[in-house]
């Protein structure tokens, strides 16, 4: 029936009227469904029943089908009905049957509540009784659907129920009671429940010892007929020993449910159920039906259009597609011309325009700051309200421009709410021609629904963009937060260093060391800041200065001598070429190369050793002059097994006497083609990312790096390793004229045992 489907469409669209809401204020679709035998029957016909989804629990049936599935079903029924033909007698029959089902359902439920003994199963049985009551006469509905006019004629001719049942059996070979039972059986409803339908028209004497469900359904059917009220107490007593008082309570609650349903259908329940109404009423009945059908048609159409709009929006992958989908959907739903979508950017605190018409891309340049009184669009966003804007002298220029660009007399703004965060996320702007103003006022709920869909799409869009890496907004935010977090302790350390510096007075050496620590902290901050750079952005070119590598080596080694070198018995020697030319490059990169190489060698020592840092400025290759920077140690060397992984990013591989215990001598460990330089040559606890950083920095400076190593050899007698002649020498070549070069590796011929690591 159109009235019922209207209610159901409204509930499913979330705009139900208050009388459909349950105590908690939520719309109760279950409550609505459990009272509508038509929709419930459709649902049962399309659902497979099992113990987890019992037939009498609308809630679980809805869960099984999903709200969208149910909505599709209601929409389909509404569409079918809105185009169907009807007659006054059919409308009357359906309405009476519906009201009767509401009545028998409530009566059965109340009777079960009163007559059934207390038990664990009682609630289950009450639900079952309500179900039987609802479908008590579904057989009549089936006969009407199948035989239509002839069945309605039989109904009109029948003076009483016995005559009706006989006529049904004669005409169709089955009466509606048995047919109803068969239908329920086909849905998988248990037999004893179906019996309640099959035997509800028998004489009382035949059901005195039947199961409670049969007796409850029988009595409910009798009580639904006002003519039977006088005899009802006697029957109730015979069947259940039910007192008058509880029978009255049952009747009153059933009457309340009936009144409610009558109001929905705008028709009163006829106690002479199947007889035709007086002819004078037919015009009213039909008019009423026409009005309801008209409304249903309108709602079903809007609902179908919304479904189309939703589909279009969900298919939109890019920003342009979103604009186009929004534009098409707005034209489909509202029939107006242009539409604009303003998307809120939190970072910029502004609204950026996205046009719904591909040819109007100039509109995409509009950006409105989210401040009051700047534009009606910003006001709409800030006030989270709908605004209809007409031309006026006082309006902001941007609003005038938008009106002009939309080419309409008015435009309306609707704020959009992000469905995930519940926060405002944008504004929908629709151009409205003057002649459409009346129409605009009637489309409030449709606009509301459309805005909800846009809010959902915008919420999803953020996820999509993050997932695709177009914006990587979430990732960037996390990086910014992490950098901020990491900078905090660094700032605190710097503060305390400054305090220390003040307290230490003018001790030059201490001040120099503190100053060095502060500059190192700044370097860490700088490294962290580099994380903010987007991968697609060209790396910021670090400022190039004239660098004297010897000075950098001296300054760094002074610091190392006073720290780890002293505590770990490492002797650091230097051999610096006094004629070394200066390099024009990023000094920080040079510092980092030297620091990593020295630390890497120093950490490889197990019990001290000697480390030599050497520079030379007279190395030529392919006609280009290079500076040589060599860091040499007499540590345990690097085993062949890990040499080929040297410089691999983050590998925990290091030189280890244990590994080098395999008998390898210096002549057979020469590696000439290590194409992926990488690996740390340190002791057990260090992650070897230092050398991979060196390799990258050297490459950035257009240089090359190579490694020559002789692992320690273990002696059979002692099991210890001999470090005689063992060690590692890493050579870095930096072009004097620094530019990225691609020098052929095989021209690096100085040493046949060199490992080519560039």
């Amino acid at each position, binding site marked *: 029936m159109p009235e019922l489907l209207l209610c159901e469409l409204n509930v499913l669209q979330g705009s139900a009227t208050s009388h459909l809401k349950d105590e908690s204020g939520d719309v109760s679709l279950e409550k609505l469904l459990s009272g509508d035998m038509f929709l419930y029957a459709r649902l049962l016909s399309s659902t497979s029943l099992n113990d987890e989804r019992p037939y009498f629990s609308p809630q679980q049936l809805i869960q099984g089908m999903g709200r969208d599935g149910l909505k599709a079903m209601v929409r389909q029924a509404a569409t079918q009905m809105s185009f169907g033909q009807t007659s006054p007698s059919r409308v009357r029959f359906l309405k009476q049957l519906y009201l009767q089902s509401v009545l028998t359902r409530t009566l059965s439920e109340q009777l079960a509540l009163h007559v059934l003994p207390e038990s664990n199963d009682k609630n289950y049985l009450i639900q079952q009784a309500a179900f039987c009551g609802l479908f008590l006469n579904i057989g009549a509905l089936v006969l009407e659907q199948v035989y239509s006019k002839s069945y309605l004629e039989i109904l009109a001719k029948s003076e009483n129920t016995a005559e009706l049942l006989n006529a049904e059996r004669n005409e169709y070979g089955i009466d509606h009671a048995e047919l109803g039972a068969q239908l329920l059986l086909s849905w998988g409803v248990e037999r004893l429940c179906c019996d309640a339908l099959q035997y509800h028209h028998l004489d009382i004497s035949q059901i005195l010892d039947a199961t409670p469900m049969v007796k409850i359904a029988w009595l409910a059917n009798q009580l639904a007929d006002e003519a039977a009220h006088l005899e009802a107490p006697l029957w109730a007593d015979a069947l259940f020993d039910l007192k008058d008082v509880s029978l009255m309570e049952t009747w009153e609650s059933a009457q309340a449910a009936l009144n409610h349903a009558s109001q929905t259908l705008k028709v009163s329940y006829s106690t002479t159920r199947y007889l035709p109404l007086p002819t004078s009423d037919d015009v009213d009945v039909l008019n009423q039906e026409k009005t309801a059908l008209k409304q249903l048609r309108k709602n079903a159409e809007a609902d179908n259009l919304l479904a189309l709009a939703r589909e279009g929006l969900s298919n939109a992958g890019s920003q342009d597609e979103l604009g186009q989908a929004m534009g098409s959907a707005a034209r489909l739903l509202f029939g107006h011309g242009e539409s604009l979508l303003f998307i809120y950017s939190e970072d910029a605190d502004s609204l950026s325009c996205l046009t719904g018409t591909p040819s109007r891309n100039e509109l995409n340049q509009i950006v409105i700051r989210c401040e009051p009184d700047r534009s009606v669009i910003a006001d709409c966003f800030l006030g989270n309200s709908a605004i209809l804007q007409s031309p006026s002298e006082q309006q902001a220029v941007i609003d005038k421009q938008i009106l002009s660009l939309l080419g309409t007399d008015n435009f309306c703004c609707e704020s959009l709410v992000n469905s995930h965060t519940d926060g405002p996320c944008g504004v929908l702007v629709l151009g409205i021609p003057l002649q459409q103003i009346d129409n605009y006022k009637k489309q409030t709920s449709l606009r509301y629904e459309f805005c909800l869909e846009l809010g959902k799409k915008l919420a999803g869009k953020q996820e999509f963009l993050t997932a695709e890496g177009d914006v990587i907004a979430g990732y960037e935010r996390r990086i*910014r937060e992490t950098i901020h977090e990491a900078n*905090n*302790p660094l*700032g605190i350390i710097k503060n*305390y260093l400054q305090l220390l510096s003040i307290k230490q007075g003018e001790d030059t050496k201490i001040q120099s060391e503190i100053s060095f620590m502060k500059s190192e902290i700044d370097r860490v901050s700088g490294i962290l800041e580099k994380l903010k750079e987007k991968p697609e952005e060209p790396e910021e070119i670090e400022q190039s200065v004239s660098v004297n590598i010897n000075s950098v080596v001296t300054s760094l080694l002074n610091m190392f001598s006073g720290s780890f070198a002293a505590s770990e018995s490492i002797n650091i020697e230097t051999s610096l070429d006094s004629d070394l030319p200066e390099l024009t490059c990023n000094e920080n990169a040079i510092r980092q190369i030297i620091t990593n190489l020295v630390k890497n060698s120093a950490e490889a020592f197990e019990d001290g050793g000697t480390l030599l840092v050497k520079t030379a400025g007279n190395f030529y290759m392919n006609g280009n002059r290079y500076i040589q920077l060599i860091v040499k140690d007499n540590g345990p060397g690097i085993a062949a097994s890990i040499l080929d992984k040297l410089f691999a990013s983050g590998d925990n591989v290091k030189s280890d006497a244990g590994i080098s215990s395999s008998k390898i001598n210096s002549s057979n460990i020469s590696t000439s083609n290590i194409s992926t330089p990488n690996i740390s040559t340190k002791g057990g606890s260090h992650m070897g990312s230092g050398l991979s950083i060196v390799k990258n920095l050297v490459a950035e400076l257009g240089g090359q790096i190579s490694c020559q190593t002789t692992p320690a050899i273990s002696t059979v007698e002692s099991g210890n390793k001999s470090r005689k002649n063992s060690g590692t020498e890493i050579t870095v070549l930096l072009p004097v004229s620094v530019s990225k070069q691609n020098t052929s590796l095989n021209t690096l011929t100085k040493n046949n045992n060199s490992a080519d690591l560039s």
Partner: protein
Amino acid sequence: MTNNSKILLVDDEPGMLASSKALLETAEYEVVIAQGGKAAIEKLEQDEFDLVLLDMNMPEVNGHMVMEFINDKLIKVAVVVLSGDFDFNSVARAF
């Protein structure tokens, strides 16, 4: 500003507050600390300061909100904004 000037130091990080306070006190400034924007607003309501050192990136009541409060109440105080955000919009919002 003389060295007995009164500074309101605002940050959500206790370590930063303690270390900065100690450092500023070596220069004989009078330093009042506020951990977070809410505490800062309370201090600004109760007392007068010559300078506010204000971290912008704080949870709940952030530095921008504290700035809004200072501007709305027309409080005459110099403010030094401490922020890791260098983008234009963030900077523009701080004024």
